[in-house]
């Protein structure tokens, strides 16, 4: 369907347009939300809120980007707030119990009960800014200039973050995955 036609339908709040929006982008957005937040329940809530905010502000959509990119920008903003709130919650909980030292890894540990594969665990452990570029680059398959525009950063900063993010993943992933080529084990041993 033509994007302009869909946007016009959304502005009129036509039921078919809302349904089309959910069917076209809901799944992909949900998966991206899951990778960003690390929790399926949080991802459902984030996507729901994303669509609600998007439909509330559809009059302001100028069509300079694709609808999906616009939706993802809203999702990213919501996910950032959500992750910061979650981290604060975990730290407060730990302070209340007073038997666990406060660290910066609250987010990483909050969803260990839903931990999946080694890759999912590693992704939850990398810092927020590195997780964002990893998801945008390798899940959304955005190009460097697209990530830069999406995050409001320079291309140099994006590339720098990507290098660090990949190095962090390399450190966190088990060696048996041999993610970074045949020499990775030897390189780690040398280090």
């Amino acid at each position, binding site marked *: 369907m033509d994007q302009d036609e869909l946007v016009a339908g959304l502005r*009129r*709040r*036509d*039921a*078919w347009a*809302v*349904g089309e929006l*959910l069917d076209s982008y*809901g*799944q992909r957005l*949900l*998966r*991206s939300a*899951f*990778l960003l937040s690390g929790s*399926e329940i949080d*991802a*459902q809530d984030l*996507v*729901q809120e994303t*669509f*609600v905010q998007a*439909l*509330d502000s559809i009059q302001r959509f100028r069509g300079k980007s694709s609808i999906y990119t616009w939706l993802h920008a809203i999702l990213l903003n919501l996910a950032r707030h959500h992750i910061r709130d979650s981290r604060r919650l975990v730290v407060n909980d730990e302070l209340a119990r007073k038997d666990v030292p406060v660290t910066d890894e609250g987010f990483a540990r909050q969803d260990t009960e839903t931990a*999946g*594969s080694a*890759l*999912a665990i590693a*992704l939850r452990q990398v810092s927020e800014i590195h997780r964002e570029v*990893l*998801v945008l*680059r*390798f*899940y959304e*398959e955005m*190009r*460097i*200039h697209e990530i830069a525009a999406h995050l409001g950063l320079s291309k*140099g900063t994006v*590339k720098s973050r*990507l290098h660090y993010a*990949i190095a962090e*993943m390399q450190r966190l992933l088990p060696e048996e995955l041999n*993610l*970074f*080529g045949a*020499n990775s084990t030897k390189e780690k041993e040398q280090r």
Partner: protein
Amino acid sequence: MNCRQFQRDVFEHLEGSLSQSARLAAQRHLEDCEACRVSAQKLDRTSRFLTTGLRNESEFLALTEDSKMRIKDSVGETPTEAVETTAIPGLFARPWIWLGSGIAIIALSIFFFVRSQFRPESDTSQKATDSLATISLRISCCEPTYTFRTDGNLVVDSLNCQPCVMEESLQIQHRGVVPENENNSQL
């Protein structure tokens, strides 16, 4: 292009977004530099591994029907097809009640206005005088309409008020009395 410059552009090299001159320079550098060639190959493998891995991690997810329903409910869609509309049963739903009420209000207004113009004739110093009065009346009312529509399995109801305004202008000629001294002062 040296190693440092190549490493700076390695992501664009892999995604194929380098300009033609930069792409040729990168290719020439890779032919001469084995370290950068190996590094680029590793990064390419990593990219493919992460892309596949992240897709596999999340492919089981699907937006629940409950979430879809909540989103649709929250936007307050306007119905695209005709829906059953039912007025409130009872007195308020009948137009003649509103019309009758309006006429009654006008009649009462006229009555009180005319009554206020007449004064007791106990004072003999007053004399009769004729006057012409114009009364403008504006009555606002609100007609409630209760609407039902079906949205999937849900019945959504809403109460709307349709404003209505009645305007009337009347000219009344009546014989009143004006105190004599007041009449003189006007002269």
